[in-house]
């Protein structure tokens, strides 16, 4: 086979009568080759599925014939109910977020409602720790403003600064927190608003109004897992 490209001392050259040089003389061949190559890159309208996988430890027994409500909303009846402002986006609940919302122009503002373990002060200190703030002295804790939450008085907590969730993620600077913590029927009910400081400050009033609409349902049971 003839070597098409020769390496000169410092350069390369195409042999004048080689197949590449001859091929270049026929534009139609080049054009058709390009079209064929381009067509090969396009995705097909039909694909035969050949990939399969085995059952894993993650697979659970499926719930058959689930309705759309069961598929897209947490099937467990929520232990907490509330009426959010219309501009908050309702998100699906999760294990630790019994009610879950998004707000604000940045799309980073979030409100979560959860049931937690411990005491009101322990939860307040945990939230402050996420902003690298020291725990509250008993005197300072006693002076915290109280607001109605699920039929009882809860303490209102504000914080701002660099937010660190404690999950190893990098800190989020310029964040704000507004939240309410109350002890309801032996459980700690928390309402936590997090997001860019300015957006949290703008929504504090809505949070306070929303907290008044919250109530525990019959599904609330004691000793749940803590929430973020």
């Amino acid at each position, binding site marked *: 086979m003839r070597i098409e490209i020769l390496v000169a001392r410092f350069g390369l050259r195409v042999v004048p009568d080689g197949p590449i040089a001859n091929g270049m003389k026929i534009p139609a061949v080049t054009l058709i080759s390009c079209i064929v190559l381009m067509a090969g890159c396009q995705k097909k309208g039909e694909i035969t*599925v050949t990939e399969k996988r085995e059952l894993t430890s993650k697979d659970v027994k499926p719930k058959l014939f*689930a309705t759309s409500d069961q598929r897209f909303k947490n099937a467990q009846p929520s232990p907490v109910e509330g009426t959010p402002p219309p501009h908050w986006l309702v998100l699906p609940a999760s294990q630790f977020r019994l009610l879950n919302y998004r707000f604000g122009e940045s799309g980073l503002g979030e409100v979560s409602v959860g049931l937690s373990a411990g005491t009101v002060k322990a939860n307040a200190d945990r939230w402050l720790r996420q902003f690298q703030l020291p725990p509250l002295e008993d005197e300072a804790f006693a002076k915290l403003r109280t607001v109605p939450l699920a039929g009882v008085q809860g303490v209102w907590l504000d914080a701002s600064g660099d937010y660190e969730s404690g999950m*190893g993620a990098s800190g989020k600077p310029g964040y704000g927190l507004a939240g309410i913590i109350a002890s309801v029927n032996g459980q700690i009910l928390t309402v936590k608003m997090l997001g860019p400081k300015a957006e949290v400050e703008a929504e504090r009033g809505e949070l306070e109004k929303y907290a008044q609409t919250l109530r525990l349902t019959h599904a609330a049971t004691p000793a749940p897992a803590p929430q973020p």
Partner: protein
Amino acid sequence: MRKRCASPMPPRQLRLLSPETRLFHTIMDSSSTPLVPKAPRTPLQWTFDLLSGFGLATIILLMLGLLTWFATLEQIDNGLYPTLKKYFDWRSVFVIPEYNGRMVPLPLLGGYWTCALLLVNLLLGGVIRIRKGWKHVGNLISHFGIILLLVAGGVSHHYSERGNMAVGEGETVDVAEDYFEHVVEVAEVKNGVQGNIHVIRGKDLTDLRAGTNRIFRLPDLPFDLEIGGYLENASPVSVVEVAPMHGEQSFDGYYLMEKPGEKNAEANTAGCYARPIYRENNPANKTTPFILAGASFQAYTLKVGERIFTVDMRKRLWLMPFTVRLDQFTAEFHPGSMRPKKFVSQITRKEHGVESKYTIQMNEPMRYEGLTFFQANYGPQGAAPGQKLFSVFEVVKNPADKWPEYSLYIVAFGMLVTFLMKLGLYLAAVARKNRHV
């Protein structure tokens, strides 16, 4: 590097000449005008000179510096994964950087292609064109080391897989979940258990934006699936709760609400619409489209005759060749903060009935059978004392996992050879000079 014109006379002989003759030789030697006129360069020669030139290498290194700098700044606002994708994915040929949300009018060649150009430059300039000889062997070795580093980057970009494995204390897990790839799974259910699970990969779904559909043939099953309207980040929303604002189609009271991409791209939940196409006409078969969403709690069920199937969208599951049991997890934080100091997972790896104990902690991963397990995370956040924790490992399968390390050894060895060679030559020159004094 291009060879300089050889001196017409060795320096030792030059010293023996008269000052006038020496000046003439010096002028002639340093003159840029060659004695023999150069032959005109062919286009190929010109291209070769350009691609192998030191000037191009300098421009590429500057460009890599700029790309890294802009990407570091941009990831603060846009998140790490989208920024990496924008700057270093092979599909990004050109990049327009952003700073503080504003476009910087400085188009840059994408990081992948910049590295590819550097690879070509190194091969042509640093291997083919470089001056050969025993004095330059160190440079050549170092260049091979850098070439290996660049090839490692390419292999890693195209062939590595990344996922995460969450294991609770006392729990045994045999599967990792992909960070980003959403797949559609179709399975037949017999006696309440799924089997024959078909996987439609994300790469065949992501281009199915609004108005584009694709039929997925499932030869083992009595139906095929037509899928379209793929959204990278979407939530199924009830029309009762939030009315569709952009004319989205709703099915069974729900529609897919598109959301902007999350800063942490692994938090994106994809969604799409699907419709079954049956092989046999049976009026009892439901042909209405349905929603598939990564953010769903249950799969969609299809009944064809007496057979039952589930269709679901989820992050791709990735079966491990062994199981991992988390025996104990401990987390330590810096005092008064939630900044992690130490995460330690004591695990038992079990393969073919053989158990082996291992400790995985930050910066001390477990490497086994081409897989690397890094300590990545833990949960639940703010757990109460005594509460059971779960540990999250990042699982990476990268054929080029250790290549960067090897390349650094090669580069270091090459530099050491160059240094020792220079030192030897210098010492020899000093010794020669001393002999002549």
